[in-house]
């Protein structure tokens, strides 16, 4: 009893006299709690971003004073003085345009299969997801071995089936498609996200289609795809952003070759910055990437109004 009156009294004290002082305290305490994150943003994101923009307009190399050169770095990139720029942009776009739709389709297809009330769901899900856990450096080693033109398993299988052998990552023309193939191995992460989206679709939507005499294709076209379109959209954006930043595979497996056939954009940037010490120039390369990614995301957002369906939006 006594504690209850005490509590009541305390509540009254709080609500009357000290409410504004609590507010004020909470105000600076809130800032204090958020301070590490805000500082982190200033020190590790905003500051470097501005510095990078400035450096991109200088000729800065390691151990020299940077001189302001205006837009010269950008001009050298775009007017073809540095042939590697367009090459790397081309290679990366080729990879992105090939890998993202394929990854989305395969992941979506697998997720639909797993959503059919299958037995052993946990096993299948684990099997498909497991490759995404593997450190990229290690999976690069394994695939390097599998892709080996002479002794690698893939060509052994091709030989056994009397199919034409491939040079895989060792030929200028096949290196990007081969790396796309390798990327399909780690499609499980995307699949799990799709699976979660599919689980949210209520059964009675499908039942309604059945009652109207619709078949599996109708269900896919009129229920599954529209209702998972926000997930498709999310995965597409993440796929694009990830695809533009591929680095380990070219660095470890191909060194950008053969004949620059896998000169991925970040690999090219890394080489300019840390092999040739062209720090200012590399910053310009980074900013071009930033703009390209923003442009892609913007375009996707613009088109998304046409094909992404949000429930409760009522169209």
């Amino acid at each position: 009893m006594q504690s209850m009156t005490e509590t009541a009294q305390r509540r009254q004290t709080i609500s009357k006299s000290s409410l504004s002082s609590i507010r004020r305290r909470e105000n600076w305490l809130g800032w204090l709690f958020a301070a590490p994150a805000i500082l982190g943003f200033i020190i590790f994101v905003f500051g470097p971003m501005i510095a990078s923009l400035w450096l991109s307009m200088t000729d800065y190399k390691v151990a020299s004073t940077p001189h302001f050169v205006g837009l010269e770095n950008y001009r050298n990139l775009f007017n073809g003085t540095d042939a590697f720029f367009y090459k790397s942009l081309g290679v990366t776009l080729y990879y992105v345009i090939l890998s993202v739709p394929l990854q989305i389709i395969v992941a979506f297809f697998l997720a639909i299969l797993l959503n059919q009330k299958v037995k052993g769901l946990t096993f299948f899900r684990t099997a498909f997801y497991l490759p995404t856990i593997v450190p990229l450096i290690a999976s690069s080693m394994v695939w390097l071995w599998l892709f080996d033109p002479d002794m690698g398993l893939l060509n052994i299988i091709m030989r056994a089936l009397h199919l034409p052998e491939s040079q895989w990552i060792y030929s200028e023309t096949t290196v990007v498609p081969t790396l796309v193939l390798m990327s399909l191995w780690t499609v499980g992460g995307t699949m799990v996200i799709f699976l979660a989206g599919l689980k949210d679709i209520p059964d009675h939507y499908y039942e309604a289609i059945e009652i109207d005499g619709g078949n599996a294709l109708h269900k896919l076209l009129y229920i599954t795809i529209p209702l998972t379109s926000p997930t498709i959209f999310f995965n597409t954006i993440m796929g694009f952003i990830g695809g533009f930043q591929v680095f380990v595979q070219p660095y470890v497996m191909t060194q950008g070759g053969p004949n620059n056939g896998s000169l991925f954009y970040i690999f090219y940037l890394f080489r300019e910055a840390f092999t040739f010490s062209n720090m200012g120039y590399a910053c310009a390369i980074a900013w071009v990437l930033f703009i390209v990614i923003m442009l892609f995301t913007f375009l996707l957002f613009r088109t998304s109004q046409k094909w992404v369906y949000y429930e409760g939006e009522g169209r």
Partner: protein
Amino acid sequence: MTTSAFRWQRVLLYAVLIIGSLLCLFPFYWLVRSSMMDLAQIFEMPPKWIPEPFVWRNFIEPFEQLPFGRYFLNTLIIVVGTLIGTLLSSTIAAYSFSRMKWVGRDKVFAILLTSMMLPFAVTLIPTFIGWQSLGLINSYAPLIVPAFFGGGVFNIFLLRQFYMTLPRELDEAVFVDGGNHFTIFTRIILPLSRSAVLVIGLFTFLNTWNDFMGPLVYLNDESKFTLAIGLQQFQGMYTAQWGVLMAASLIIVLPAILLFVIFQRYLIEGIALTGIKG
């Protein structure tokens, strides 16, 4: 639909799933199998499915030729440091952004969120120059310290989402009993969000364990390398010696897989919940 057609559909469904999952697991099998073979067995035609005899020497070689034990320890130091930093600072920040009222809170949060759009390449070089001017290149500071400053906006975002679902009445009850924000945070919010914190911890572990570019940029001394960099060094020394290379790869893969197997239920639910893929 007739029952026999339905049955055929089920058979086809399982056939595709089984073949698909075997394809996914196959590289693992090939990794393990090759890691236990000497060169003669590796290059035998047609290839053998099971090593005969099992060669364990491949697993000793990395430790003899390169300080793999040291790399293991180095990697662990970075992982543990990053974990502590990330978990401490992301939970505190998420608490502030979800359960404290302060002027400008939501605007500040929106600004922080924009950094998720920024490719790491943009900040990479100035950040490198910054650490260089502090004389901290070739130390673990550039790899660990940033984790203590917010622990990643994405993690804050996830935790904030989670904290916002917890009822406000809990906080009020603590205030009435004379507690403060620190009490709410440690006694109520943290215990209630254990599963969310676990997911973030797991992904932080895996991402740091797998990180290649960070150590590549910041570490020069061989004695400071991580396993990922060590493996890449090893590749240069043992071109085409696949048995040894696979053994060294397996040494890096195993801890990640072990962790995954132990926590896989949380992990997969976590990905489904959040959309992170690791």
